[in-house]
């Protein structure tokens, strides 16, 4: 048992941390509900008053979404659809390919598997900036610029970190389980789909949540590869929205739009939380 003072201290630290992290979010919520004048004042002068939403302007939310892009609602809905398509494909692609490759590294004996694994881990050390220009040239030569392909196709080739995570987890599954599946008539694909995937759900939850949040919020890649307005994802559209109205004239609407785009990530995180924590907690799979 921890002593009382120790406990108090831990809680105080946790609360302080929570407040620090929640402060910007709360500020966004407060400003998103203000009139344009009050929002400007809050942005410029700050102060306690800026954190209290008096007279909440709920219509800021529909207004903001409506005004995104050049045609009413269309800008927002297009961007939303684009984000959803790109994110779902990238998430599914990353989880499926990473688990498949993870299984191969964990369970298949083949020539060169060890050096290949090390090379794959090595790719984690390459900063994205290093590969940005070569990748752009590659995708341009493939004629993929201004399509979703550069955002989606690489996901189907796995992600070194998630492959590593899957491999570690899959290596703990008892060999006899896979042998039983082989005797029950499964090939490698069947084993992967019917045994490995269901047993690695915690890893899949982590992979899915991280990939989803990263792809959903990713700004740089869509900005580089997507050029027409109707291809923009939400993060890009949000940026145009900011430029459209310049500076802080409609900061309340900007905050409302930003908060709206965060909703899917928060929902997903809450939904996957249980899987998540289970995965961090146990790891091994017992027959």
């Amino acid at each position, binding site marked *: 048992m921890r002593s009382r003072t120790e406990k108090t201290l831990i809680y105080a630290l946790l609360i302080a941390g929570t407040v620090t992290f929640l402060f910007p979010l709360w500020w966004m919520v407060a400003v998103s509900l203000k009139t344009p004048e009050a929002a400007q004042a809050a942005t410029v002068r700050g102060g306690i008053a800026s954190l209290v939403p008096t007279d909440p302007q709920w219509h800021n939310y529909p207004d903001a979404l409506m005004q995104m892009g050049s045609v009413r609602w269309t800008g927002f809905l297009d961007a939303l659809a684009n984000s959803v398509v790109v994110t779902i494909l990238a998430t599914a692609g990353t989880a499926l390919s990473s688990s498949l490759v993870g299984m191969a590294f964990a369970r298949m004996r083949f020539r060169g598997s060890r050096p290949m694994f090390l090379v794959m881990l090595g790719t984690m050390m390459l900063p994205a900036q290093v590969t940005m220009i070569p990748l752009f040239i590659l995708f341009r030569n493939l004629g993929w610029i201004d399509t979703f392909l550069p955002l989606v196709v690489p996901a189907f080739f796995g992600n070194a970190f998630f492959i590593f995570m899957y491999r570690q987890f899959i290596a703990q599954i*008892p060999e*006899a*389980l896979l*042998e*039983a*599946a*082989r*005797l*029950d*008539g*499964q*090939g490698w694909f*069947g084993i992967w789909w*019917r*045994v490995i995937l*269901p*047993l690695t759900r915690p890893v899949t939850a982590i992979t899915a949540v991280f990939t989803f949040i990263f792809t959903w919020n990713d700004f740089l890649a869509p900005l580089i590869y997507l050029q027409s307005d109707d291809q923009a994802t939400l993060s890009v559209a949000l940026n145009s929205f900011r430029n459209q109205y310049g500076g802080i004239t409609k900061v309340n609407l900007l905050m409302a739009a930003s908060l709206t785009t965060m909703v899917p990530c928060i929902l997903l995180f809450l939904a996957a939380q249980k899987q998540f924590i289970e995965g961090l907690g146990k790891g091994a*799979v*017992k*027959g």
Partner: protein
Amino acid sequence: MATIELNCVSKTYTGDVRAVREATLAFRDGEFIVLVGPSGCGKSTLLRMIAGLEAISGGTVAIGGRVVNELPPKDRDVAMVFQNYALYPHMTVEKNMAFGLLRRRKHGGISGLLFHRAERRAELAAIDRKVLDTARTLGIEPLLARLPRALSGGQRQRVALGRALVREPQVFLFDEPLSNLDARLRIEMRAEIRELHRRTKASMVYVTHDQEEAMTLADRMVVMKFGVVQQFGTPGECYARPANRFVAGFVGTPVMNFIEGRVDGGAFVAADMRVTLPAARWPRMPAGPATLGVRPDQLRVLYRADAGASSTAADGASVAATVRSIERLGDRMDVAVMIGGTRMTARIENDDRLVEGGSVLVHIGLGAAHLFASGEDGARLGDAHDAG
């Protein structure tokens, strides 16, 4: 149901571990075969080569007359029960049992879903029925909806058994299926497996390191050591006519007593004793260094007062000894005695007069004794039993 023929089967693992060396064995259709031997002797490896889980380094394995060396496990029509049950943790008992059958459906694929709905439904219903029937015979029907983690060890083993049974394979393979159970459950399940074999008349190959399990289950057993088959025969044969000293020592409890010495002019001579060997038992009397093997129940420990009467018995010889220790088993007792420098165990009727440290006379019965060539794995030297 099928015969299994192993022809010069060998397995060499990377690093030059020779786990199985040129095993040539033929199992009959419907036979219960037990592979037995100390840990690491290659039993599992041999079993896994039959299953197709391990590549065969040399020789051929044939199931039902067909060489299966190149066939993947799923095409060999074998089912296996593992030591750690190997139930799919994410599937209910019912799904675990149905899993292998679902894979073998004719209308399992997309075409079944689209064009043969009725056949597909009939197949699924048949699978349900089979699973239910099997579950009933094993008494696990109430567990069908549970996940493996909600089962006790014994129940898991039963489900694993059910999963193999429901497939109705040509051959059942068991790799130490009972070693994770407690002693009582083990004996109960042993009887049940035996009963299962009697009922299904299926070919079974069963691996265990426990000679008692092997003796009680096997129609015929394969005794192995260091990857080499030492003897292949019925439990009775292995017990009564062990091929060599290793088998003699491995089969039967308490372990057979061995005395190193030499055969000289029709008598066995060791440091502290000289016993005359009945010529009727060894018609071709060997000569030279040898090991005498006597099972504990062939020894009688005589309290000195009774000694005079039996010392001249024709079927054996009596020698002086000291009692080292006594283990009481209820109606009988194991007495360890020292005959000179050799320790021997006798299993006898209770005799309260014996005390630890006391001197006794030990009568060595030679009616079922064996002579082995000297050395750890010395072959049994021919005796009357082999004449016919």
